[in-house]
C-alpha cells in the first residue's frame, strides 16, 4: 500500500532523548520521582505501567505541555526545558480524539505544515504522502465525524508525522478502540516507525501492546522506571516482583528458599535471589505443565480453557489456584487428580508476604 519512496522521503536521522533526575511535583504528590530514561536515536520505547504511575506526565514533560519541577529533559544532548511546546519539533498523538472538527482530514494533516509556512503545492504533496503512509489516501475530504475511531487515530498519526518531527509521542493512542482495530493499528504504528526510523515513545498500560511493538519496554511505577529492557528480558528476567507481576501472567506461590534453591510445588528450583526461608515465587503458566497423577496426585483440575495451540488448565493445590499451560492435544477433565511439573530455569521470588503483592 505504502510506497517506499514516501517513507524514505520522510526518513531522517534519529534523535536521542534523555530524562535526567526529572521530578514533577503536583502539590504533595510526586508524579515523576527522579525519573531516569535514555532513548537511543530511532528507538521505539514503550512506557508501561499501571494507571496513575506518571506515564502521561513523563510524555507531556517531553512534549513541553508540562513543566518539570527539577531535573532536565534533553534532546540530542541539549536541555529543552526552556523551549516552548510549539518549537519542540515533536509529533504527538493523544489518547482522546484530537482532530480539529471544523477541518477536513487533509486540512488537519496540513496544519503543522501551515504553521511552518510551507508552500501550498508542497503542503498538499506532503499531506497526501503522509495520509498514504497511514493507509487513508482516499479520505482527505472527510471530516472527523465521518470517520471511525481507528481512522481518526490514523489521521492523528499522519498529522503528527507530516512535519517529520524528531520524536513521535503516543499517549495510549489505541485505548479507545476495539480489540481488533487496536491490534491492527498497533502493528501498523510499528511498521511506520520502522520505515521512518523515528525515535518513538509509546505510553500504554497494556503489557501485550508494549511487548508486541517496542524495541525496549520501560516498566514504570510511582514516578520511576522500575526496569527497562527488551520485551524478552522483561519477560524472562524480571528484576523485581512488581515487574514479574505486571508483565505477563504469573502464579504467586508460597515456597521455601535456601542457598540459591527454592522449594515450590514439591520441586527444587534455582533462584538468583538471596532470600532465605518463606518466600513468594512467581511462576509463568508456561513454566508449569500438567501430568496424569501418579498415585493421589498433587492437585485437582478446577477448570481448563482452549487457546488454539495450547490449553490453560487451573489446578487447585492445597486450596490455591495454579494456572498451568500444556499442548492442546492433552486435556484433563474437571475433578481429575493431576501432578505438576515446573520447568522454570530460574525462579523470581520475593520475601513473604510480598510487600507489593497486588
Amino acid at each position, binding site marked *: 500500500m505504502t510506497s517506499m519512496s514516501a517513507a524514505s522521503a520522510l526518513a531522517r536521522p534519529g534523535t536521542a532523548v534523555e530524562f535526567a533526575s526529572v521530578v514533577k511535583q503536583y502539590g504533595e504528590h510526586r508524579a515523576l520521582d527522579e525519573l531516569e530514561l535514555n532513548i537511543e536515536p530511532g528507538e521505539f520505547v514503550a512506557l508501561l505501567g499501571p494507571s496513575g504511575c506518571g506515564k502521561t506526565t513523563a510524555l507531556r514533560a517531553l*512534549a*513541553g*505541555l508540562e513543566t518539570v519541577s527539577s531535573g532536565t529533559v534533553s534532546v540530542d544532548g541539549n536541555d529543552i526545558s526552556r523551549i516552548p*511546546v*510549539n*518549537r*519542540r519539533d*515533536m*509529533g*504527538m498523538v*493523544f489518547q*482522546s*480524539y*484530537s*482532530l*480539529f*472538527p*471544523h*477541518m477536513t482530514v487533509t486540512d488537519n494533516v496540513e*496544519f*503543522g505544515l501551515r*504553521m*511552518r509556512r510551507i508552500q501550498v503545492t508542497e503542503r498538499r504533496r506532503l499531506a497526501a504522502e503522509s495520509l498514504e503512509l497511514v493507509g487513508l489516501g482516499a479520505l482527505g475530504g472527510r*471530516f*472527523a*465525524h*465521518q470517520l*471511525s*475511531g*481507528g481512522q481518526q487515530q490514523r489521521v*492523528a498519526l499522519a*498529522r*503528527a508525522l507530516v*512535519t517529520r518531527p524528531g520524536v513521535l*509521542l503516543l499517549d495510549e493512542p489505541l485505548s*479507545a*478502540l*476495539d480489540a481488533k*482495530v487496536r491490534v491492527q493499528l498497533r502493528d501498523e504504528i510499528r511498521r511506520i516507525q520502522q520505515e521512518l526510523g523515528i525515535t518513538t515513545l509509546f505510553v500504554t498500560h497494556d503489557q501485550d501492546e508494549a511487548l508486541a511493538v517496542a524495541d525496549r519496554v520501560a516498566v514504570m511505577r510511582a514516578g520511576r522506571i522500575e526496569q527497562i529492557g527488551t520485551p524478552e528480558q522483561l519477560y524472562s528476567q524480571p528484576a523485581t516482583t512488581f515487574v514479574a507481576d505486571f508483565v505477563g501472567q504469573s502464579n504467586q506461590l508460597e515456597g521455601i528458599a535456601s542457598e540459591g534453591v527454592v522449594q515450590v510445588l514439591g520441586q527444587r528450583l534455582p533462584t538468583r535471589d538471596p532470600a532465605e526461608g518463606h518466600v513468594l515465587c512467581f511462576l509463568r503458566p508456561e513454566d508449569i505443565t500438567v501430568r496424569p497423577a501418579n498415585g493421589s496426585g498433587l492437585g485437582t483440575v478446577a477448570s481448563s480453557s482452549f487457546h488454539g495451540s495450547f490449553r490453560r488448565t487451573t489446578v487447585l493445590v492445597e486450596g490455591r489456584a495454579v494456572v498451568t499451560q500444556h499442548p492442546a492435544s492433552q486435556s484433563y477433565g474437571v475433578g481429575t487428580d493431576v501432578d505438576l511439573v515446573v520447568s522454570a530455569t530460574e525462579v523470581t521470588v520475593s520475601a513473604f508476604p510480598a510487600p507489593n503483592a497486588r
Partner: protein
Amino acid sequence: MAALTAPRIGGKPSRWTTTTILGIVGVIFAIPLVSMAEFTLRSTGGGYGFEHWLALIDPENERRYRMLWAGIRNSLLLAPSTVALMLVLLVPTMILVQLRFPRLRRLLELICLLPITVPAIALVVGLAPVYSVISGVFGSSAWTLAFAYGILVLPFAYRAVQSNLQAIDLVTLTEAARTLGASWPTVIIRVIVPALRTGLLAASVISIAVVLGEYTLASLLNRQNLQTALVQVSKSDPYTAVILSLLSLLFAFALLAVIGRVGAGRPQNRTTS
C-alpha cells in the same frame, strides 16, 4: 455514506403524524401574525389597503415618527455593541476557565446564570448608581446601555457557548495545535474560534434577539430604544405600532431560523469510536 452520518433514531413518527403536529403548531403561531397583518391592512375608511404601511415611509410624517426612528437606531446600535461586549468579555473568560482554571467553571456558571433570577426592577435599582458613573465616563449616548444589556444576555450567551464547549475537547485540541507548532494567537484564531463557531453564532444571535425585545431596563433608565418607542407610538398610532411589532417579530423568527441552520449545519465531533 449516508448511513454513516444519518442520526439513528429508533422508530421515527409517521409522515402523517409529523405533518399534523407541525401543521397545528404552525397555525397556532400564524394566528397572531396573520391577525396583526390583517389589522395593519385595514383602511381608515373601511376595506383593505397599504395606507398605514405607506404612511410609515411618507416623508411628510417624518416629524411624527422621529422618536420612533431614533428608537430603532438606538436598538440597532445597541445590538452589535452588546454582542461585541459579550464576545470580548464573556468568551475569552469562558475559554480561559475551560483551559486553565477548570475549577472555576461552576462559579462562572453560577455568576452567568444569576441575572435570570434577578427581577429587572432590582437590576435597575442596582444599575442606577452605576450608570451615574458610566455617564460621567462615557457620556450618556445610547450605546452605553450595552453595559446593562451585557448582563441581561449573559445567561443565554453562556448557555449557547457552554453547550458548544461541552461538545468538543478544547484542551486536547489546543494541545494538539500547540505540538504542531501553533503560537497562542494562532491557536485562538485557527482552532478555538472556528471550533466554537456554532456556539458563538448562536450566542450572538440570541443576544441580538434579547436586545431588540428589551423594554424594562431602557424604560426604567429613561433611555429610548425600539420597544420604548413602540409603546410611545402605540398610544397615539396603534397601526404603526403593530406594523413594527410585526416586523420585529418576523426579524426575530428569521434570527431563530439562522440559529437553527447554524446548529444543524454540521454535526459535532463524535466522541465515541
